[in-house]
């Protein structure tokens, strides 16, 4: 059991600065997910914590000890690799035993731990097989088993589910969550899949171009994204963005774009005050748009043309256009509409986001 602290961590590959000033405090028993697009530095950060990459500058602490110069074997961590990295010439049992054998555990203890891990993961019947005789899901379990038997201070996961098919991935995601609740070991999990990040993480670290964009609980990221990147990355379907001009008039603040004029609600308007007359990006999630009813105030409504209708059963996704801006709206499945039909959409005023056009930071 241990906390992991990362201070001003940097990594350069030659002249390529891939991790920039990362600061993190991962609490004991916490499940933290690093998420971001390819090349955002999340895997490199994980590999530095594992000791597989040298640190260019900054500190990594595991359980209050600086481990920058400590080799991987002495960091008391276990890692699950993207391609499982099972030893192909060893049986499942030997794969799990290897780490314990290297650490000179006695045979009875090794057997006991393998048995327990096999029970937890339901792989008891596979112990004598070779990795090549296993399916992808089974290999994944064995890789987990190899980590569990070690009983480490920290679990590291490097995109462990990305090689599984969609159905199996959902199933393993649930199992990973249960496993973490049962074992309660500090875990760091890297993924590029925001759904995995939202469902698994106690807290999520969103990274882009080597820089941490925001750290927070899943709903915090969803409800109050720190910038446009986080807003667009978290949530599916993604948030709608429209480039607008902010202007004052009739005693209130308006966000305007061709074919669009929306009254900015009071609490946000108060924050935006200094920005009147400037450019900004308006953000609204598809689920915060609805077909306008008679009770909806006019300043929160705008007219759109339906371009594509996606029937998902539980909801309908409407791809619409208002002037130069496009909006995806998640609407009631009972709605009957046709392509090219003109509709009025209303926004949920509490869930409107504005981002600075230059810095892209939330206003």
């Amino acid at each position, binding site marked *: 059991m241990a906390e992991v602290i990362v201070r001003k961590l940097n990594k350069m590959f030659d002249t390529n600065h891939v991790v920039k000033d990362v600061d993190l405090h991962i609490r004991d028993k916490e499940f933290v997910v690093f998420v971001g697009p390819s090349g955002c530095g999340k895997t490199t950060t994980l590999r530095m914590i594992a000791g597989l990459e040298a640190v260019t500058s900054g500190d990594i602490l595991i359980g209050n000890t600086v481990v920058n110069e400590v080799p991987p074997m002495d960091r008391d961590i276990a890692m699950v*690799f993207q*391609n499982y990295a099972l030893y192909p010439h060893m049986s499942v049992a030997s794969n799990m035993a290897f*780490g314990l054998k*290297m650490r000179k555990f006695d045979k009875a203890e090794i057997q006991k731990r393998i048995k327990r891990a096999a029970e937890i993961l339901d792989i008891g019947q596979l112990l004598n097989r070779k990795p090549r005789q296993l399916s992808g899901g089974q290999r994944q379990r064995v890789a987990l088993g190899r980590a569990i038997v*070690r009983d480490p201070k920290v679990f590291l996961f490097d995109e462990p589910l990305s090689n599984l098919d969609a159905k199996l991935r959902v199933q393993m995601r649930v199992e990973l969550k249960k496993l973490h609740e049962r074992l309660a070991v500090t875990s760091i999990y890297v993924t590029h899949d925001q759904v995995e990040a939202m469902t698994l993480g106690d807290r999520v670290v969103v990274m882009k171009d080597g820089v941490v964009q925001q750290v927070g609980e899943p709903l915090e990221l969803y409800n109050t994204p720190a910038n446009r990147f986080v807003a667009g990355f978290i949530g599916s379907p993604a948030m709608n963005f429209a480039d607008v001009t902010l202007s004052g008039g009739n005693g209130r603040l308006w966000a305007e774009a061709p074919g669009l004029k929306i009254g900015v609600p009071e609490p946000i308007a108060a924050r935006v005050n200094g920005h009147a007359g400037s450019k900004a990006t308006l953000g609204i999630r598809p689920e915060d748009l609805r077909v306008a009813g008679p009770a909806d105030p006019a300043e929160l409504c705008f007219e759109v043309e339906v371009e594509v209708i996606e029937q998902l059963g539980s909801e309908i996704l409407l791809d619409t256009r208002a002037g130069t801006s496009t909006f995806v709206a998640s609407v009631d499945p009972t709605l009957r509409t046709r392509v090219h039909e003109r509709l009025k959409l209303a926004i949920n005023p509490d869930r409107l986001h504005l981002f600075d056009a230059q810095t892209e930071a939330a206003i």
Partner: protein
Amino acid sequence: MTVTAVPGVVTRPTPRLRRLEDERWLALALLMPTAILLGLFIAYPFFEGVLLALTSQRVGVPGGFVGLQNFVKIWNDSIFRTAVWNTFWYTAVTTVFKLGLGLWLAMLLNRHFKGKALVRAFILLPFIIPTVLSTFAWKWMFDPTFSVINWALFHMGFITQRINWLGDPDLAMTSIIVVNIWRGVPFFAISLLAGLQTISPELNEAAAIDGARPWNRFWYVTWPLLLPVTMVVMLFSVIQTFADFQLVYVMTGGGPANATQLFATYAYQLGIGTGLLSEGAAISLAMFPFLFLIVVVQLLYIRRVETR
């Protein structure tokens, strides 16, 4: 049903070509070039050799059928026994060193460093240069009068007298072994490097996290995964070394006093050098059961390793 041909529209292949549509004929046709080449240059000389070994033919003397007499004769020939022993010793020692050094080089070349491609190309040089040419160069280096090795050792103060590398029976064997290792290491290094590159680096990282020190990572992860490639490389090398001729012929010609005589050099010396064609053929053939045994053992082992 009657079929009416439409004149001039489709010309069907002639019956002879149509035969190739039958897979059995096609297979035969495709096998032919290889079969003819192998038959002409391997099988035919081999059977001629067997027939020759059963006669008393000499240069200029047709001779007659003598059965296994030639084999009995060489069995009682002390030089032949020396050659057998020498061949085994030569093969065993060089293979051990080629494997060791080749593996070491392969592991070094598998790391990332600047100019890696250039070093890899240079490593292959001893393997690329025609053996006879490079062996002549080595012969000069071992020359009793002009030896650069002696010169270097003398100037570094290790020796006060010239060493007669190729004139002393033990040193001569050591010398040809050194040259064979020098020539053979690149083949091992490059082949094993290819084998190493098929092993995912993730496995080594997983082992490092699992607590394995470098030696254990090599012994428990890299070596077992490299073993199939290693065995195939060894198989090729053993066959080649066992039947080695050029290197020894150029360096020592089998001397001094047959101290470096191998199967191939002795067969040549007796068959071509002294004109006892049938006895030379018998010696060449005597190599066959030994090689056969070695190859069978290795192939069985390779199969066991691969089906693990």
